[in-house]
């Protein structure tokens, strides 16, 4: 984790303290996610349900409803934070976020098409599988559009092109939906939610998210070098084209798998690196692990808030992250303006 060789020991100790604090926060948020829900289950009952192996309803809810939900929240939040930090580091653009490489939109499109064709009704995992197929196609198109060039600009443009085209096709699908019920179902799914996901969703998405995270976790040092500029990084022996490939595939694996099971959850990948940058410093190798933990905390906390704010009729997680994220982003813009003045 602490790969930075250049920094002083005091700074490293500070980093370690931040990571430890974030790790504790992840554990607390995870526990809260297990504790909160429409079925009132107290802490003793919860612990009993986890460790006793009995088959009562409380155990069923904890193990089969809340545990997969909390695990998915943890994984999706962590991968969103991680890929957001990596993308902001590579593109050296504060607006970069995981949706930028076009994978979120194409995964959404793939999932929505399974709704539209009725596949999602035929077998239960058609929806996430469709999302993953969409993500794969999206990433192949982005990679071929961006070409062999290593420049961030072509990647951004290719990502925007794929995102807007996939978004247009998603709207077209909504437009052609056979009946209002189908359109509503698609709309609700697009808002992003962790509600009632099961362990099958975890098993389906976890391998991809873990592979993607491992790929992104190795990018710390090359991204550190890149802060000195492309030429400097090149001189230091880092192949920028290989870096971009790893970045795009890592993000695609993480975000594609995430969107496929939960729908798009916005703003986490964008704001978490911004929140943590003043705390851990601007070195990507330090920001990557911190952002992964921070993303997990934010997503788990938001998913708990969704259940507390409107019991029974849950708000959609994606709606809440956007509600919290957008004003925060505004605050960042205002602060940046103040600094510039």
């Amino acid at each position: 984790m602490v790969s930075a060789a250049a920094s002083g020991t005091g700074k490293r100790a500070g980093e370690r303290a931040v990571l430890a604090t974030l790790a504790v926060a992840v554990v607390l948020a995870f526990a809260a996610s297990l504790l909160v829900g429409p079925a009132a289950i107290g802490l003793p009952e919860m612990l009993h349900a986890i460790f006793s192996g009995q088959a009562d309803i409380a155990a069923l809810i904890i193990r089969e409803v809340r545990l997969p939900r909390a695990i998915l929240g943890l994984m999706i939040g962590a991968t969103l934070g991680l890929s957001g930090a990596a993308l902001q580091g590579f593109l050296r653009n504060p607006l970069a976020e995981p949706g930028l490489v076009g994978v979120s939109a194409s995964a959404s499109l793939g999932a929505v098409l399974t709704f539209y064709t009725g596949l999602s009704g035929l077998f239960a995992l058609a929806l996430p599988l469709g999302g993953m197929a969409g993500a794969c196609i999206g990433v192949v198109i982005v990679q071929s559009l961006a070409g062999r060039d290593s420049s961030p600009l072509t990647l951004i443009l290719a990502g925007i092109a794929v995102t807007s085209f996939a978004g247009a096709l998603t709207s077209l699908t909504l437009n052609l939906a056979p009946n209002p019920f189908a359109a509503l179902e698609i709309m609700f799914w697009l808002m992003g939610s962790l509600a009632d996901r099961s362990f099958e969703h975890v098993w389906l998405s976890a391998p991809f998210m873990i592979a993607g995270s491992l790929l992104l976790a190795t990018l710390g040092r090359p991204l550190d070098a890149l802060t000195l500029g492309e030429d400097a990084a090149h001189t230091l022996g880092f192949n920028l084209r290989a870096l971009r490939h790893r970045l795009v595939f890592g993000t695609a694996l993480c975000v594609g798998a995430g969107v496929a099971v939960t729908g798009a959850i916005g703003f986490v990948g964008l704001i978490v690196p911004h929140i943590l940058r003043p705390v851990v410093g601007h070195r990507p190798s330090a920001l990557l692990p911190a952002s992964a933990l921070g993303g997990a905390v934010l997503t788990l906390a938001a998913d708990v808030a969704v259940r507390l704010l409107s019991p029974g009729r849950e708000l959609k997680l994606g709606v809440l992250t956007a509600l919290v994220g957008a004003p925060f982003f505004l605050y960042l813009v205002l602060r940046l303006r103040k600094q510039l003045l």
Partner: protein
Amino acid sequence: MRAVLHSKRHRLYRSHRFRAAIAAIALTVMAGGATPASAKPQRIVSMNVCADQLVMLLADRDRIASISFLAADPYASALAGAAVEFRLNYGLSEEILPMNPDLVLASAFTTRSTLFLLRKLGYPVVELPVASSLDDIRSNIRTVAKAIGEEARGEAMIAAFDAELPRQVAPSGPRPLAALYWANGYTSGIGTLANAAVEAAGFRTLGRQLDLVGTSQLPLETLLVSNADVIIIGQRRDGAALANETFRHSALREIFARRPSIEVPDYLWVCATPFIAKAIRQLAEARKALRRSGSTGVERIW
């Protein structure tokens, strides 16, 4: 791992009970008695407004553990008044699991992940397809009746439904052209219950004439040039919605001033329930009145 083990055990438990139920049925069959109450689902949970209404009509009240919150929405449900006495659910598995249902009724558009979870945990889930014809209503009634073990009541309901339908839809004589026009400029075309009901009442429909399939948008201009004899509109909901703006369009107001219109509440035909017979009957009455007077103005069907 623990979770997997657990769910297996849960299934085992359920299948054990299932075997007991089978044995009970076998015993009564041998004894020549009727199916005992214990073999029928006793804790029915419905997660869909259409299934809600059918189960409220077919099952004894004490066998229904919960129905969906939409059942209490007076715009969507014909039984909204009675629904408030039931425990309402919002379709989340955490609400449904503590009720330990022995039957879950859902629709083809109930959240997939919730149904998947319930099925995986061994709860019997019956999905009702979206009805697109009057025959689908009969088949949905049969599906629910069979699932809850009230086949006789189901057949009685179908017989009553068929009896309430207008006997002879005058095939001769003029069949006025009806334009169905909903909020947001939607119309119901071929393969929708509303279209089937209006046709069963002896009208031709603009959706059929234009070959529109399903619920689709009807451009205002198309409606204006259609020369429809009557416009059938939905009941307007309270509460501001851009959707209702369509009805304030001056061109549409002009049409309403010149043509008769019939207002039909959504709850009569949004679901495959026998209540649609009432809508058909009253639409047929309205059609006769239309031919007599050629009047304008809004007629309400409640």
